[in-house]
C-alpha cells in the first residue's frame, strides 16, 4: 500500500474556539491508483492532502507513507519524506520566483538527488517547455506555470503525486490540456495520484473517488 491513513483527526484553533476539520478519516491509496478527493469548500480536503503529504502532522491517527509511519518522523524526516516520496501541484502553482523554469523544474529532483537528464529532457519536451527553460515564472502564463509545476512534481519520478485543485486557476481549455498531460505522465510512471478537486467531471476521470463531508469520508 502506498498510503494508509487511519482515524486521522485535525483541529485548528481560531478566535471562535477550536474547529474540528477532520474527525476520524481513514483512507488507502495503492500504487498506480488515482483517487479524487471531493467535498464542499472548507470541508478539509486541502488539510487532508497536507497531512498525507507530510506537510503537517495530525492531532491523532496514523498515516503511513510508503511503509513509513509519519508520526515517527522528526521535522527533518518529514522534509526528507516530502523530498523523496511526494510530488506536489498546487492551485496557485507556487513556483519559486527567483529561479528560472529549468531550475524550478529540476528543483525537487536535485534536492532529492534524483536528477535524470534524459527524463528531464523528455519531460520538458512533452510539457512544451523546451523553449521556455530560461524564463522566469513571472514571465509565464498560468497554464505554462502549471506545466512547470507538474514537471517539478514529476521530475524526480516520485511514487505519489498530490495535486490540490491543479486546474482551479486555469481556463477550461488549458485545464483540459494540463490534466491530460498529468494523467498521461502518471500512467507512464506508475505513480499514485491523489487529487483534490471540486469538479465532478475531473473526478470522474480518476479510478476512484471519495467525498469529504463534516470531517468524515463518505
Amino acid at each position: 500500500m502506498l498510503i494508509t491513513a487511519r482515524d486521522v483527526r485535525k483541529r485548528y484553533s481560531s478566535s471562535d474556539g477550536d474547529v474540528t476539520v477532520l474527525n476520524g478519516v481513514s483512507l488507502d491509496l495503492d500504487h498506480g491508483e488515482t483517487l479524487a478527493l471531493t467535498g464542499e469548500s472548507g470541508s478539509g480536503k486541502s488539510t487532508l492532502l497536507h497531512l498525507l503529504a507530510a506537510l503537517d502532522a495530525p492531532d491523532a491517527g496514523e498515516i503511513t507513507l510508503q511503509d513509513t509511519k509519519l508520526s515517527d518522523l522528526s521535522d527533518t524526516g518529514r522534509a526528507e519524506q516530502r523530498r523523496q516520496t511526494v510530488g506536489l501541484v498546487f492551485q496557485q502553482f507556487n513556483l519559486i520566483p527567483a529561479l528560472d523554469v529549468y531550475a524550478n523544474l529540476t528543483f525537487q529532483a536535485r534536492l532529492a538527488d534524483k536528477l535524470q537528464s534524459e527524463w528531464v529532457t523528455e519531460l520538458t519536451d512533452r510539457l512544451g517547455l523546451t523553449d521556455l527553460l530560461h524564463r522566469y515564472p513571472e514571465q509565464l502564463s498560468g497554464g505554462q506555470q502549471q506545466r512547470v509545476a507538474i514537471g517539478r512534481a514529476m521530475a524526480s519520478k516520485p511514487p505519489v503525486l498530490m495535486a490540490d485543485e491543479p486546474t482551479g486557476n486555469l481556463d477550461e481549455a488549458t485545464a483540459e490540456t494540463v490534466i491530460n498531460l498529468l494523467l498521461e505522465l502518471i500512467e507512464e510512471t506508475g505513480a499514485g495520484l491523489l487529487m483534490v478537486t471540486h469538479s465532478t467531471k475531473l473526478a470522474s476521470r480518476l479510478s476512484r473517488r471519495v467525498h469529504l463531508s463534516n470531517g468524515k469520508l463518505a
Partner: protein
Amino acid sequence: MRLIALTAILAHWRRKPGQLVTLLLGLALATALWSAVQAINAEARASYDRASGTLGGSGFETITDPAGPIPIDTFIALRRAGWLVSPVLEGRILVGDTRVLITGLELLTAPPGAFPVSPIGGEDFNALDLITPPGLGFASPQTVARLAGSREIPRLRNNALIPDGQIITDIGTAERLLDREGEITRLTLLPDQPRRIPPLSEIAPQLRVNAAEESGDVGRLTDSFHLNLTAFGLLSFVVGLFIVHGAIGLAFEQRRSTFRTLRALGLPVRDLMLMLLAELLIIALFAGAAGILIGYLIAGALLPDVASTLRGLYGARVPGTLSFDPVWALYGLAIAVVGALFAAGQGLWQIRTMPLLASAQSRAWATASSTSLRLQSLSAIVLIVLGLLMPVLLEGLIAGFAMLAGMLIGSALLLPVLLSAVLSVGAKFASGIQSQWFWADTRQQLPGLSLALMALLLALAANIGVSTMVGSFRLTFTGWLDQRLASELYVSVGDAAESERFQAWIEGKADAVLPTITVEAQIEGAPGEIDGVIDQETYRASWPLLTAQQNVWDRVAAGETALINEQLSRREDLQPGDTVNVGADWQLEVGGVYSDYGNPRGQAIVSLALLEQRFPDEPRLNFAIRSDNAAALASAMRDDFGLDPANIIDQASIKEFSLNVFERTFTITGALNVLTLSVAGFAILTALLTLASLRLPQLAPAWALGITRQRLSRLELLRSVALAALTFVLAVPVGLALAWALLAIVNVEAFGWQLPMHIFPMQWLWLFVLAVVAAALAAFIPARRLAATAPADFLKVFSNER
C-alpha cells in the same frame, strides 16, 4: 463612520506592537542623533559668538603701523578726524613661570561686547577700579588660579570665555603691565563709520587697514569640525529614515485590505489620507519628543569631549555644559515630522492612487526592473563624477564636502547594482540547486534590502574613512612630534638677567644648548611669529622639513633664507625660492617648508643671529637642551640653579600632553561612528522584519518541496551576513576615497596642512567582523522566527481560499 474607521486603522498597532516600537525607535534615533549634533553645534557656535566675535574685539578690521606701535597722538588724530577706532595694546609678560598675553582695550570706544563686563566675574569692584591703578583684569578661571598671588598683575576676575593665558584689561592697566606707555598695538576699526571722513592717507599715511583676523578666526577654523559633525548627524538621520520608511511601508502594506474595505464601505479617500496623516503626525511627535530627549542626553555626554577637542585643536573655548534651547527642541520635532512624512510619502501616495478594487493581497517586493537599475547606475556614476570634479569647480571646504557627498551618495546608489551583479555571478557558478536558489533568492531580496544596505555602506565607508584619517593623523603626528621635539628638555627663564645666568650655568653640563627667541610679527599681513634658532645638528637631523632648497640649513645659518610652516606656505602659496614678508620692510627668501600640525598661525624660522640683530632687546628666554641624562640635569636645574620646576618641561610630558589632545580630538567622531553603525544595523533588522512576512510565499514552496525550516532559517542568516560582507567589500574603496578626500582636501582647507595617508587593514578586519556581527544580529530575530514558523502558516500560502 470616521471614528470606527480610525479605530480600525489604529487597531493594527495593537496587534503589532513590535512594529510600532520599531517605527518609534527608528524615528526617535534619527531625530536624536540629528538633534544631538545640532545642539552641540549650536552650543559651540554660541560660545564662539560670545568669545571670538566680540570679546577682545577680534572679528573686526584693524589698523596697524607696519613700523611698530602707534602713538596715542595718531589715535587722537584719527578720532578727531571722525574715524571711529578703538585702541588696543597687546603684549606678553612673564608672570612667575607663566607667559601671559595682556590685551588692553579702551572700554569706552571698544566695539560693543568687546570688553568682558562683569556677569561672570565678581561684583566687588567699580568703574574707578577699572581705569585707575592698580586696575582690574579678566581671565579664564584656570589663568586666575594659576596667577593667584602674583604681585605684578592687577586683581583678576573670572571670565570663562577668555582663552587660557590671556588677561583682558583696560588699556591703561595694560600700559603699566607691559611698561609701554603711550603705545598702541593696533586700532580696532568699528563697522559703522560716519559719512564723509577723510581718507587714512591724509591723516596717518603710514597706517594700514587689515582685514578682520582670518587665519586665527575661530569660526572659520572650527567650521570644518562642525561641518563634519553636521555631515555625521545628517548621515545618521538619513539612516534612521530608512528604518522609518521600512516600518511605515510595512504598516501600510499590511493594512491594504483594511483600507480597501473601509473605502468600499464609503470612506472617502481624502478622509482616509487625513487619518493616516494624523496617525503619522502623532507617531512623529511622540518619537520626536523621545528623540529630543535622547539627543539631549547624547549631546550632553559628548559635549565635554567636543569642548576639549575644540580647545586642544583650535584654542576655541566652549563650556562643557549644555543649555536647553526650546527653539532647538521645536526644530527637532519639526525634523521628526518632516522625516516621517518624507519616509511615508511613497506609501501614502500608493494608497491615494490605489484603485478601489485592487487586490487586497500584499504585493511582494517587486524585482527592480533592469531599466530602473540602469537609470540608478547612471545617476550614481554622474554623482560620483560630479563629486570628483568638485575640487576643480569649487573653492574651499565646501568643495571637499561636496565631493564627499557626491562620492558617498553615488556609491550608495551604485551599491544595489553592483550587489546584483555579484549575486548573479554567484548564482551562475553555484553548483547545487540549494546554493543556486540561495544566490538567486538573495538577489531577489535586494530591492527590499537595498535601502538598509545603502545605510550600512554609508556607515561603513564613513567608519573606514574617518578611522583611516584618524589613524593617519595619529601616526603622522607621533612621527612629527619625535622630529619636532628632538631635544630632551625644554627650559624657559624669566628675564634677560636670568637668561645670562642660566647660559653660564648650563655651559658644559649638557650635550647641546639650543637657545631660541620668539617674536610676534605680522607675517604676510597676518599675526604670526618668528623663531630664531642656532645652527645645530639637532635641527639638521630631525626638523620635519617637507620641501627645502639644497643646503638649506647652511643658508638659514647664513641669514639668507627663512623656513616657513606648511600653513603659511599653503595660505600664501609660498614655495622655496619665493619671498616672504615677515614684518615691516623685512623680506626673506623661503628656504624650506616644514610641517607644523596644530598651529593655526603662520610661523617662520630664521637664524638666531639674524633675529637678534633685528630685535636686539629680545632676550633668549627659551632653551632646548640635548642631554643623555635629562632627568639628572633637570633636577640639577631645579636644585642647583634654582629654576622653577614649572619652567622645565621634558620631552616625554610634552608628547604626552600633545598626544592627549589629539586622542580626544576624535572621540566624538568615534562615538558617532559607532552610533551610525548601530543605526545601520537596526535598519537591516527592520528591513528584514518587513521582508519576513512578505517572504513567506516565496519560502513556502521550497519548504514544501523538502527544505526544513531550520535550513531555511540558517540560509536567511547566511544571506544577511553575505550581503553585509559584500557591502563591506564595496565600502572599503569608498571609505578609502573618503579618507583621501578628508586628508588631502578637507584637511588642507580646514587646517592648512596635508597628511600622508596610511592604511590600517587590521582596523578593516575589525570593522568587517563588526559589520558581519551586526548583520547576523539583525537577521537573528527574523531567522529564529522563521525556524519556529508553524507549518500551518506555510500552508496558508497554498490555501485556495486566499
